[in-house]
C-alpha cells in the first residue's frame, strides 16, 4: 500500500476527489468487512425455521409416510382394490365376503393347511370379498390425488387471474374483482353438489362413447366433475390473495425499472412478480389440499364422488355406514385416515406459513 503522502496532489481546479483527505482503514475496521457466515437464501431461511417447528416436522413425516404408502404399496401388494377374491377362485365363493381382520377364505385355508404362506387380509374383506386394506390404501391415494391436482388447478387459475387483475388495475381490476366477489358469495358446497349431480349425468354418455378407453374415461365422471367444479369455483380465494400481493409488488422499483426498459406485462408478471409472491403461492396451495380432500370425501359420502369400484376414503366410510353394527372397524379406518391426512396437512400448511411468511400469521 502506498503511503498517503506519496499520492498525487489534487489539482485545485479539478473536480477530482482529494485522495489525501482519505484515511487508511484500521485493522478493526477491516475485520468488520469480513463475512462471518454464509448468507442465507430465502429457501434455506424458510427451511431452517420449518425444521425448528416440531409440530410441522411431525406432520411432514406423517404426510410423507402416507404419501409413500399410498404410492408404492399398491405396486407390490398381492391383492388389487377391485379384485373380488371369492370370484377369482373360479366359481363364486361366498366364504371370502365380509372376512374379519386376519381371517382367510375357504380355499385359502386349504392352501395354508398344505403349508403355503398366504398374505393376510389385514383389515379383512368387504361385502364383495375385496381386500379392505388395499382398498383403504387405494382410497387414500385417490383422495390425495384429488386434493393435489385440484389444488394445482386452483393455483394456476388463481395465479393467472389474480396477477392480471392486480397488474392492469383500473377498470379491468374492477370488473374482474366483481366477478370474483359474486363467485365468492355463492354457497360453494351447495353449488358443488348441484354441479356434480348435473355433470355426473351429462358427462357419462360423453365418456362412454367419444372418450371411451381414454385415461379420462378411467377417471370416471365423479372425479372429472370434482376437478371441473374446483376449476370453476374454488380459485377465487387464491385470485384475491395473489391480487393483493401483486398490488404491493407493483409499487416496487424493480417493476418500474423493468417497465422502463420496455418489458411487456406478461413478462413482468411471469419473471418479476410471481417469483416474488412464491411464498404466498406455496402456502395457500398447501392449505388448499386438505380443503379439497375434505370436499371430495364429503361428495363421495353423498355418493357424488368417485365411481365404483374405485374407492375413496369418503366413499369407503359411506359404504361402511350400512354395516356399522357388525363391521364398525370398516368405518373407523377410513374415518381415522381422513382425519389424519386433513389434520397433518393443515398443521403442515400452518407451519409452512409461519416459516415462509410470518407476516401472514393471523
Amino acid at each position, binding site marked *: 500500500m502506498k503511503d498517503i503522502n506519496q499520492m498525487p496532489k489534487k489539482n485545485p481546479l479539478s473536480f477530482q476527489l482529494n485522495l489525501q483527505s482519505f484515511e487508511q482503514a484500521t485493522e478493526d475496521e477491516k475485520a468488520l468487512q469480513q463475512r462471518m457466515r454464509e448468507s442465507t437464501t430465502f429457501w434455506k431461511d424458510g427451511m431452517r425455521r420449518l425444521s425448528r417447528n416440531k409440530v410441522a416436522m411431525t406432520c411432514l413425516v406423517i404426510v410423507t409416510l402416507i404419501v409413500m404408502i399410498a404410492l408404492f404399496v399398491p405396486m407390490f401388494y398381492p391383492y388389487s382394490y377391485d379384485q373380488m377374491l371369492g370370484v377369482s377362485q373360479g366359481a363364486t365363493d361366498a366364504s371370502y365376503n365380509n372376512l374379519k381382520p386376519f381371517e382367510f377364505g375357504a380355499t385359502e385355508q386349504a392352501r395354508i393347511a398344505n403349508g403355503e404362506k398366504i398374505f393376510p387380509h389385514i383389515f379383512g374383506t368387504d361385502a364383495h370379498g375385496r381386500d379392505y386394506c388395499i382398498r383403504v390404501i387405494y382410497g387414500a391415494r385417490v383422495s390425495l390425488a384429488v386434493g393435489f391436482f385440484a389444488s394445482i388447478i386452483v393455483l394456476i387459475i388463481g395465479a393467472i387471474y389474480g396477477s392480471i387483475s392486480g397488474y392492469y388495475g383500473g377498470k379491468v381490476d374492477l370488473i374482474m374483482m366483481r366477478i370474483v366477489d359474486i363467485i365468492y358469495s355463492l*354457497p360453494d358446497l351447495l353449488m358443488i353438489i*348441484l354441479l356434480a349431480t*348435473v355433470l355426473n349425468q351429462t358427462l357419462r354418455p360423453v365418456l362412454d362413447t367419444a372418450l371411451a378407453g381414454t385415461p379420462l374415461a378411467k377417471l370416471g365422471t365423479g372425479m372429472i366433475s370434482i376437478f371441473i367444479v374446483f376449476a370453476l369455483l374454488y380459485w377465487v380465494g387464491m385470485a384475491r390473495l395473489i391480487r393483493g400481493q401483486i398490488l404491493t409488488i407493483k409499487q416496487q422499483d424493480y417493476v418500474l425499472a423493468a417497465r422502463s426498459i420496455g418489458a411487456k406485462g406478461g413478462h413482468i408478471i411471469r419473471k418479476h412478480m410471481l417469483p416474488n409472491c412464491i411464498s404466498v403461492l406455496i402456502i395457500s396451495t398447501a392449505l388448499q389440499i386438505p380443503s379439497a380432500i375434505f370436499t371430495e370425501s364429503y361428495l363421495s359420502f*353423498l355418493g357424488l364422488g368417485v365411481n365404483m369400484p374405485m374407492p375413496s376414503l369418503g366413499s369407503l366410510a359411506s359404504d361402511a355406514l350400512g354395516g*356399522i353394527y357388525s363391521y*364398525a372397524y370398516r368405518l373407523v379406518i377410513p374415518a381415522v385416515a381422513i382425519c389424519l391426512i386433513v389434520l397433518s396437512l393443515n398443521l403442515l400448511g400452518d407451519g409452512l406459513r409461519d416459516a415462509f411468511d410470518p407476516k401472514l400469521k393471523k
Partner: protein
Amino acid sequence: MDSKLAFYIGKRIILALFTVFLVITITFFAMKAIPGGPFLSEKAPSAAVTAQLEAKYGLDKPLMEQYTTYLKDVLRFDFGPSIKNRGRTVTALMLEGFQTSGKLGLIAAVLAVAFGLVLGSLAAVFHDKFIDKLIMVISTACVAMPSFVVATILLLLLCIVIPIFPSNGSTAGGLILPVVALSLSPMSYITRLTRSSMLDVLGQDYIRTARAKGVSPSKVLFKHSLKNAVTPVITYVGPMVAYILTGSLVVEQIFAVPGIGKYFFSSIINRDYPMIMGTTIFLATIMVIMTLLSDICYKIFDPRVDFN
C-alpha cells in the same frame, strides 16, 4: 360516516340479491342441461305419456318461457310439485323438513358460539397454562374433522359400543348427537378465533389501565376485553351457517333425522329435479342472508373497519 355505512349496506344488499338471482339461474339451467329430462330415470314411459307429463309440468314450452315462469314462481316461494313424492309440493316438503333442520342448525350454531367464546376466553386468560394447551390441542384436532366423520364416530361410540343415546334422530333425545356432530368443528374454530383476538386485546394498554384503576377482573374480562374481541367471531357467523346447513344434509342422513337432508339426499339419488332445485335455492338464500347480516353487523360493531 353514516352515509358511508348506508352506502356499504346498500351495496351488500344488491350483491346479495344478485347472488340469489345467480343461484336460481345456475340451478335452473344446470338442471335443464341434464340430458333426458326427469322422466327418463325409471322404466321409460311411452312417448305419449312422456309428452303428457311434460305438458303437465310445462316442460314443452320454450326454454326462456320456462325460465321466466320459474323465476316468478320462486318469487312466490313456489317450487312446483315434487316428481317422486306424488301429490306433494316441494315447498311443503322443504318447510316440513326445515322445521327439524332449522331447529337442529340453530341449536348447533348457538352452542358453537357460546362454548367457543367461553373456551376461547378461558384459553386466553390462562395463556400458556395447562388449560390453554389442552383446549388448543383439542380444538386443533376437532377443527379439521369433517362433520360426517364426527357424526359416524359419535354414532359408533355412543349408540353402539356404549348405547346411551338413541341412534334414531326422530325423537327429541336423538337430536343431541347430531347437534354435537354439527357444532364441534365451528366451536373449535370460534375457540381459536376468540383466543387469538382475546390475546391481542388483553395485551392492549387500555386493559392495563382498566386493571390499574381497580376495575374488577370479571368486568375487565367481559366488558373491556370480550366486547372488543368478539368482532372476528361475527364475521365467522356467515360461513358457520353455511357449514352447519351443508353438514346437516349428511349428519341427518347418518342419524336418520327427518329433516331437509333426508329429502335432499333422496332427491339426488332419485333425480327428483324440482326438489334438488328447490332445496339448493332455499338453503343458498339462507346462507347468503346470514353472510349479509354478519358482514353488516361486523361493520356496525367495529367502527374502526374502513369501508372498502
